[in-house]
């Protein structure tokens, strides 16, 4: 098409402005797509923090709170639940598996979770993936063994056989340490991109053992102290845990069991469906996520307005060009078409360059983002949604291009062939 050739040649003649204009659009497109990708990925990875678990049960509080401390290791439980409540439901015939968890201690800012071997065999995340060890083994009978999440091991440079001391409480600067009962690293989990990576896993017995000589939240002194070896010989059955997770034989029983647990007479309990609670939690953060999206849309709009300004400013100095074209037979709609094509060409160049920037950015940042934020940004073709966004951008450019096109149309009708400007 000859008009396109003319439009491109005219743009090439103003290549510096054209380049800057297209570059601004490219940056805005790249930003929009990057936000979009991170958003989609964050939502997906958030939703896949936990999977395969039918119910999470804790002391009665709020569902988001329970989800936050049991899955995300954020905040604290208001209350513990009794071991026999756990036993009661763990042995229910509808229950396929049960994982008790006990929280409350930490190690250099990372949460410690007491659990059982069932955690390694039944806990699932992502698309029904099980936890796997990258080195070593699960904790066994000895209570003072710890299995580290991938990030903990990497950030604190622990290797198998290292000894570490847990701290009481979850404050960043730990007050009291369980330094009389050090733990040995026996295993490191593979990276999951979930809070599991930031957790130290010990057995419930270990959790019990480090607190066995504590009374009213303070360690015993002098003769009251119980050494690690003494503790090994004692009964380390906990009396209370923080929460437990249930997997059921039949999903249909989920709601009735949930109701039952919520109405449990012996202790006030709360059972939540992780999927529903996750959604509830996401809807809290959804506003921020949408705000980010809206902001990036406005950045694209700014880029396009920049283009509009650049084309409109050029109109006056290009009256001669228009008059020459008119004198060689271009009709006013040719002139208008020329400007629309110009806008489209700039936007298309911006979109292509934006995609290029995005992929270059993803290729560069992929490893870093995954390591630090647990987000896997795929180097994949744009999704249908992204194509739609790009098409909308081009459509908007077309719409914007019609403004200078209309002006040039009027102008070329008025100027006619007069070239003396």
């Amino acid at each position: 098409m000859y008009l396109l050739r003319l439009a491109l040649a005219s743009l090439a003649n103003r290549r510096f402005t054209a380049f800057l204009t297209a570059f601004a659009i490219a940056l805005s497109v790249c930003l929009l797509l990057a936000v979009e990708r991170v958003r989609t990925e964050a939502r997906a990875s958030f939703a896949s923090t936990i999977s395969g678990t039918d119910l999470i049960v804790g002391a009665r509080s709020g569902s988001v709170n329970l989800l936050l401390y049991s899955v995300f290791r954020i905040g604290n439980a208001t209350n513990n639940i009794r071991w026999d409540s756990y036993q009661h439901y763990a042995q229910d015939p509808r229950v396929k598996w049960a994982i008790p968890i006990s929280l409350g201690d930490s190690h250099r800012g990372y949460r410690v979770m007491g659990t059982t071997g069932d955690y390694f065999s039944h806990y699932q995340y992502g698309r029904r993936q099980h936890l796997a060890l990258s080195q070593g083994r699960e904790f066994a009978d000895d209570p003072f063994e710890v299995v580290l999440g991938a990030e903990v091991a990497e950030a604190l440079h622990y290797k198998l056989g290292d000894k570490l001391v847990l701290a009481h409480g979850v404050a960043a600067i730990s007050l009291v340490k369980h330094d009389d009962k050090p733990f040995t690293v026996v295993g490191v989990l593979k990276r999951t991109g979930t809070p599991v990576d930031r957790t130290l896993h010990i057995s419930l017995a270990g959790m019990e053992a480090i607190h066995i000589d504590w009374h009213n939240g303070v360690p015993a002194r002098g003769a009251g102290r119980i050494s690690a070896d003494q503790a090994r010989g004692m009964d380390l059955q906990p009396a209370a845990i923080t929460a437990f997770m249930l997997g059921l034989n039949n999903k249909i029983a989920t709601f009735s069991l949930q109701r039952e647990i919520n109405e449990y007479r012996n202790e006030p309990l709360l059972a939540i469906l992780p999927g529903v609670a996750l959604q509830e939690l996401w809807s809290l953060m959804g506003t921020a996520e949408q705000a980010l999206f809206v902001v990036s849309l406005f950045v694209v709009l700014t880029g396009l307005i920049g283009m509009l300004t650049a084309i409109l400013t050029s109109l006056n100095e290009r009256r001669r060009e228009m008059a020459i074209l008119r004198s060689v037979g271009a009709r006013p709609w040719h002139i208008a078409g020329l400007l629309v094509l110009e806008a489209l060409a700039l936007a298309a160049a911006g979109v292509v360059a934006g995609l290029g920037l995005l992929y270059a950015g993803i290729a560069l940042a992929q490893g870093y983002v995954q390591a630090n934020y647990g987000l896997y940004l795929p180097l994949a073709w744009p999704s249908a949604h992204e194509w739609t966004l790009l098409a909308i951008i081009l459509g908007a450019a077309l719409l914007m291009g019609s403004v200078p096109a209309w002006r040039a149309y009027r102008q070329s009708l008025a100027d006619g062939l007069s070239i003396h400007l």
Partner: protein
Amino acid sequence: MSLPLIELQDLVFAWPNQPTLLDIPAFRLDAGEALFLKGPSGSGKTTLLGLLGGVHLPGQGRIRLLGQDLSALGQGARDRFRVDHTGYIFQQFNLLPFLSVRENVELPCRFSRSRAERARQRHGSVDQAATELLAHLGLDHPAMLARRADSLSIGQQQRVAAARALIGQPELVIADEPTSALDADTREAFIRLLFTECRAAGSSLLFVSHDQSLAPLFDRHLSLAELNRAAKPREA
């Protein structure tokens, strides 16, 4: 010389909310004629050329080009009619700077099928037509044809503009002060070249200028001020 190429009858034109600018009872240009029309700036010269090009329509009266009443045609048809039958040369900066010399010459053939067709009939191809026309006008270096139009001197650019006006043999070539940017020597040479090429293409030439010294070179010369009744009171 039977059918007049251009015929104006009782033409009256005024811009909105302004006094009458043109009032021409009669004017004609015959086929094959080279006419010098003297018109100083501000005399309504540009407006007259706009009327002849069908860009504007007269308030009263008639403009016939090749017997066709321009008022009877729609806007798009007038545009097509103009490029099919008229070639233009302007004062200076006639060319699109970002296109090559050759592309500039070929422009009318891009917008007018009949001019492209005539160029093919006479020269074999549009490409060939541009090459030959430029060679006749003294621009025969192949490398020059591929250069950007604005890399040429003013004199060369005007010759390129002439080639563009002549390609596809339009019946009429309108030259609006084409020599005002040229020095005296090249001026006359350019006009003679233009005559030769117009004759070869069978085109009539309407040459508009304020420079009376060029008038003797032409078959016939007129003054717009004499033609235009609206101009007389101002001169008196």
